[in-house]
């Protein structure tokens, strides 16, 4: 266990850091767990969507007359003033719940139906006739980014409403740019003056899908008073709450959002489109009573139309001295987004944090853009742009190390940030586990030791390593309530969504630690805007830190109330009291004690009450505004709440006759601050590396032709199976605990740092094996074979990523 600064934290806890069993585990292993998609309500209607077959078109007319009269059809809606009065969006409000005027991607929702059965709803959708006038689409990132793109998606972009706290910034001459962010640290034309070598390269990343095992689902219900409740698979209940109410001009408290305790994954991809359409269908009903409407995307619909990780273009120029010291780094990153910005607006900006914080680089320039293209929404994915930008950086760094004849591990150890270093935001870094992560990964992969000789002459082996980091965003706020029940049990009301990461379990552990009661005596409610207060969202690996801090504060508040009541009963001073095992007692005189139940007064007829205060209900907000980066330089003393570091190393076996790549060994070391529960941390590491890391590097790609996804099913969209991962003995994970002075018990987070360095670690290993540098992922067997044949023919050892192209080429057209 590593504690890295003067803020030492006691490691001797009763519940913190312990491998407690998942508190929701029994439901999950017995089939009792109910997911949103399991919801069945009496007289429920089923929703289906009419989608655009064109990537870019004007809607000339929509004829719903035949659909409306199909027996069993109850509601038919289109994008009009009644159904979709206002746009909504995470940062820029650019999206209507159903398209109005134009459709901007194949799959864009144009109309929707609610009917007695899914089959009837589908049949009704087929009966809706839409007339379109096709427009030229733009798919290519370079073209979309250019000053004269073949298509402009949002002509009126400058007049759209934007969010006040982190508003997007546009680029005057580039009409499809929906966000622009820049960093300039000590940068002028002499930036590379002291560099002995300069390497300039371009890298790309393919679009991939989150593939949450439960496809997106929403159930909208309107009660007898006309109040709307939406239950969904969203990871941001309050974000969805705002989008639903504000885009319909509904006062916010007239809408209720619920997320079940069981949600089938998120990984950053839960744009609440299904919930939004379900809400519109429910609200469009005439007459009483209103029937519930369920909108559940099919797997194919989910893969074809729901948000993905965006394609990325990364152009990078890095300079270093002969001895390996980094001198300067210049980057342009393009998040090739979809038709609506969604979370892409923030991802485009915040993907810059990874490169900004990885290394000590005195001269740093970065221009990050997000652009619209006529594809479905693309943006946030585990890593929030950082896996994509670090893909470029970590490949380039490996190439520099090679050119300088310095071991890639030593090169990184020499240059990585450490406690107290300034990053490119000129922020003084705190809680940095980079070195420890690198050393642990190197140890576990046996760095420096050649792989075992392969059995066949056509198999080549190699090892690679990569460093990464993931920030967690500011401004951020999390609130919670902690209730102490008369039976001595404690209840947490939080809007953090239990996605499987184990938030309910670690929050229970936190409360157990505060109240010294077993985890079995803690209950965590599921998110419900009627009783669980605001949380920014279960994203950005922020919940342990932010909600954890809110929980500590709320526990303190609850204990204060508890002790005030008990002090009166025990006739002692409040500050002498402590609580444990559902009792309150004087710390140095434990005989002087009361059971919590004794603090409540039994009332005639029934029940227990307090004399004043209502309940023992601790409340707290943990609000961390941070410091907004300077718009010109990005300078900020607190652009993020914290950084998680990660180092990963891979050993690969390449079949040079077929191009097949096997990851024979893979290791990860993640700096998460104090690990709340090692099983939960390991779970994040495992999934990040073995599913998405290997998947994104070698197997996964949303293959698109003219805006249409060609592989929207599991046969052809390939996520790793049990046979695609290294054996248990050949995969190792290390937990590095570099305490954060502001984290609850020193904790930070872990969720996303788990895959931001996986792809470059694998690609660097492939280079070690066969001497080819891949500039794009996924690295498929066909690409490997083509690259090997090219190398044999022309000596060229670079493949993919449009590495000969430059964004600036478009300016000359």
């Amino acid at each position, binding site marked *: 266990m590593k504690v890295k600064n003067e803020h030492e934290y006691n490691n001797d806890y009763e519940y913190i850091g312990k491998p407690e069993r998942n508190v929701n585990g029994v439901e999950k292993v017995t089939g009792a767990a109910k997911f949103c998609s399991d919801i069945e309500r009496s007289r429920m209607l089923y929703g289906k969507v009419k989608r655009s077959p064109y990537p870019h078109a004007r809607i000339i007319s929509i004829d719903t007359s035949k659909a409306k009269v199909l027996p069993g059809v109850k509601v038919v809606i289109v994008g009009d003033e009644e159904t979709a009065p206002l746009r909504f969006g995470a940062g820029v409000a650019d999206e209507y719940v159903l398209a109005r005027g134009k459709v901007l991607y194949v799959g864009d929702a144009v109309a929707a139906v609610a009917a007695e059965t899914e089959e009837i709803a589908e049949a009704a959708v087929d009966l809706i006739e839409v007339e379109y006038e096709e427009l030229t689409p733009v798919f290519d990132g370079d073209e979309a980014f250019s000053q004269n793109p073949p298509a402009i998606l949002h002509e009126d972009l400058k007049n759209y409403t934007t969010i006040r706290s982190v508003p997007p910034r546009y680029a005057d001459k580039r009409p499809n740019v929906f966000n622009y962010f820049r960093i300039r640290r000590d940068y002028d034309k002499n930036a590379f003056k002291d560099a002995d070598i300069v390497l300039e390269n371009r890298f790309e990343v393919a679009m991939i899908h989150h593939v949450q095992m439960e496809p997106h689902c929403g159930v909208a219900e309107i009660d007898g008073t006309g109040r709307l409740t939406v239950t969904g698979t969203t990871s941001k209940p309050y974000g969805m709450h705002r989008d639903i109410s504000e885009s319909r001009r509904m006062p916010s408290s007239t809408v209720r959002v619920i997320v079940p305790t069981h949600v089938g994954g998120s990984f950053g991809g839960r744009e609440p489109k299904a919930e939004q359409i379900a809400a519109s269908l429910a609200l469009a009903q005439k007459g009483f009573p209103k029937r519930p409407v369920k909108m559940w995307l099919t797997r194919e619909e989910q893969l074809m139309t729901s948000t993905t990780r965006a394609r990325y273009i990364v152009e990078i120029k890095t300079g270093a001295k002969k001895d390996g010291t980094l001198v300067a780094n210049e980057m342009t990153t393009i998040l090739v987004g979809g038709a609506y910005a969604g979370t892409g607006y923030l991802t485009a900006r915040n993907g810059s944090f990874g490169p900004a914080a990885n290394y000590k680089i005195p001269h740093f320039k970065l221009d990050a853009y997000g652009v619209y293209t006529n594809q479905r929404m693309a943006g946030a994915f585990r890593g929030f742009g950082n896996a994509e930008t670090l893909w470029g950086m970590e490949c380039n760094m490996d190439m520099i190390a090679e050119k300088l004849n310095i071991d890639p591990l030593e090169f990184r150890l020499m240059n990585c940030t450490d406690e107290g270093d300034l990053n490119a935001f000129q922020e003084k870094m705190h809680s940095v586990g980079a070195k420890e992560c690198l050393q642990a990964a190197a140890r576990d992969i046996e760095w420096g030791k050649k792989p075992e000789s392969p059995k066949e002459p056509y198999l080549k082996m190699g090892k690679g390593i990569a460093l990464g980091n993931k920030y967690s965003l500011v401004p951020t706020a999390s609130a919670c309530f902690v209730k102490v029940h008369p039976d001595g049990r404690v209840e947490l009301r939080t809007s953090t969504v239990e996605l499987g990461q184990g938030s309910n379990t670690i929050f229970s552990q936190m409360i157990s630690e505060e109240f010294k009661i077993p985890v079995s005596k803690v209950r965590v409610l599921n998110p419900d805007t009627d009783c669980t207060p605001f949380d920014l969202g279960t994203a950005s690996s922020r919940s342990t830190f932010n909600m954890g801090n809110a929980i500590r504060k709320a526990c303190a508040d609850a204990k204060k109330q508890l002790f005030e009541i008990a002090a009166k009963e025990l006739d002692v001073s409040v500050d002498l009291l402590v609580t444990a095992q559902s009792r309150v007692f004087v710390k140095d005189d434990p005989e002087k004690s009361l059971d919590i139940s004794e603090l409540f007064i039994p009332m005639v007829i029934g029940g227990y009450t307090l004399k004043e205060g209502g309940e023992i209900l601790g409340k707290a907000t943990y609000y961390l505004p941070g410091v907004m980066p300077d718009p010109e330089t990005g300078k900020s003393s607190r652009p993020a709440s914290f950084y998680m570091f990660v180092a990963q190393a891979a050993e690969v076996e390449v079949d040079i*006759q*077929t191009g*097949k790549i096997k990851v024979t060994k893979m290791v990860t070391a993640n700096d998460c601050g104090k690990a709340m529960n090692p099983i939960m941390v390991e779970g994040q590491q495992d999934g990040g590396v073995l599913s998405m890391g290997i998947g994104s590097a070698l*197997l996964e790609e949303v*293959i698109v032709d003219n805006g249409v996804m*060609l*592989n929207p099913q599991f*046969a*052809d969209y*390939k996520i*790793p*199976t049990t*046979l*695609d991962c290294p054996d248990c003995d050949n995969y190792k994970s290390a937990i590095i605990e570099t305490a954060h002075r502001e984290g609850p018990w020193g904790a930070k987070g872990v969720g996303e740092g788990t895959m931001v360095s996986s792809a470059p670690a694998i690609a660097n290993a492939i280079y070690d094996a066969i001497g080819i540098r891949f500039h794009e992922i996924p690295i*498929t*067997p*066909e690409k490997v*074979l*083509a690259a090997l044949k090219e190398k044999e023919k022309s000596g060229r050892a670079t493949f993919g990523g449009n590495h000969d192209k430059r964004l600036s080429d478009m300016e000359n057209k």
Partner: protein
Amino acid sequence: MNNFEYFAASDVKEACSLLSRYGEEAKVLAGGQSLVSMMKQRLVMPSYLIDVKGILELDYIRYDEKEGLKIGASTTHRSIEKSPLIREKFPMLSDMELNLASMAVRNWATVGGNLCGADPASDLAPCLMALGAQVTLACASGERMVLLEDFIFDSFETMLREDEIMTQIQVPAKAARSGGIYTKFARRATDLGIASVAAHLTLDESDPDMCKDIRIVLGAVDTYPHRYKRAEDLIKKKKINDAVIEKAAQAVFEDCQPTSDTNGTEEYKREIARVLVIRNIKEAIARARSL
């Protein structure tokens, strides 16, 4: 799914009788691991479904030195996978099953259903063709035997008549000095193949370097699995060496007709086929020699 009428046949006679009545608009349901999925997507919309999965008399695996291996059409893939008999006599079949779909699918899907489905990327068909299999087709008026390599003749097309069901698959007894192997190249181990090769050969009794007989069958690189006779003729009755094997592989490279799709281009699939043929023939020889 469309509306259809369902019948469960309890024996071959009943199945044939139902088929002769409804044949044209009926589909035979065995494991249904392909059919049910296609019906859900409305790619296939039969008016009648005749369920033959329950025909227990067709669930068997038998072997004798004279008649060889006999497998009832209702036998599941999992039974093939776990049969010690098949593991001993025809290990290439056992190995092929390991990578066929998944265990749960193999628990339910039948070998008869697989062959009658005639998926271009079937794993079973190339294997059995390489082993010289024959299939028995029964109808109300009798039965006939057909070579498997003739039975499947186009994409999802077989010689099965509307009023027939497959009852048995028969493979000649294991010959001395014979060996075979099936490998499938796919992005993930249990995917449908990008290219798959079944190679089975018998060595000459007196000359271990001489190939007496060989069958090379590929799946996934054409509209249906079939033998590559031009390649076979380059090895059959010849002394086997690297150059001969390369020539045969080159013949396959030229003769196969893969199509480009999201799993690979035509050129890539050809090259994989070529590589697999070389590797598999070498392995088949090694296995033939090791006994």
